[in-house]
């Protein structure tokens, strides 16, 4: 693979290099309702992040959001049905990450989820994935049915060990 960006050479964004040289990395894949297959795709995604100069907290946060969304698609969306699949569309450029994850379930309403930090829920061992996705990504959009999520992470002004959340 030819790297459009070498992080060592070009530590800072520049509109020129972005528009004319940056060939965003793309993964477009249909996986079965198997988290191992999801893991493989996320490993490839994280490799692309490294190649395109993402690191530190942003790297961690994208890893977390991808992990939670893929597991939700398989577990809650497809209910691990071996006849159902998950469509992954990942794009990584040096300045922006686009993750689209679509399952074949009946969806849900992310706006009516209970707050897992509430006193009566804080001891429950569940219900933190969507919250972390929303905290860690710059934009999160579910479709109306709720079986597809688009998550965008924009590079913060500071490169490297930024601790920005979203």
């Amino acid at each position: 693979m030819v790297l459009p960006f070498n992080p060592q050479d070009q530590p800072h964004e520049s509109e020129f290099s972005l528009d004319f040289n940056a060939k965003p990395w793309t993964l477009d894949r249909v996986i079965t309702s198997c988290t191992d297959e999801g893991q493989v795709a996320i490993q490839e995604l994280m490799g692309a992040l490294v190649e395109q100069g993402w690191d530190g907290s942003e790297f961690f946060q994208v890893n977390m959001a991808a992990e939670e969304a893929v597991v939700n698609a398989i577990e809650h969306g497809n209910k691990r049905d071996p006849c159902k699949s998950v469509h992954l569309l990942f794009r990584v450029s040096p300045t922006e990450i686009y993750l689209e994850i679509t399952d074949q379930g009946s969806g849900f309403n992310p706006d009516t989820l209970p707050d897992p930090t509430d006193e009566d829920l804080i001891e429950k061992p569940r219900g933190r994935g969507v919250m972390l996705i929303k905290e860690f990504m710059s934009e999160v959009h579910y479709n109306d049915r709720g079986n597809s999520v688009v998550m965008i992470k924009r590079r913060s002004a500071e490169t490297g060990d930024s601790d920005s959340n979203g």
Partner: protein
Amino acid sequence: MATPKRIVVNEQDGVSVVRFVDRKIVDSSSIEQLGEELIALVTVDKRNMLLLNFENVEFLSSAALNKLISLRNKIKPTGGTLKLCNLHKDIEQVFKITKLDKLIEILPNEEKGLASFK
């Protein structure tokens, strides 16, 4: 208990210090196994003063968080305590966002962790 595979346990001043084998706690069957091994510390080995040292851990998913909550819930009625130490800053951030740092005490390092049990 059967020899644990995802954790390494050391007794120190009456506290069980637990370290993790995996740098990324994310694979679903590993998480299940991890959860069982942690719970067995309490139910089988009757240990209830636990300090989990996260030094080796770079990443963990919310499924792994859930196992920690279940462990905390198992320990509580025994009068014991679960504490964590040496969290990478991004993981500590996860605990802050989810307010789990209010449920499970987090210490900066093993020394302070052990001291806090005294």
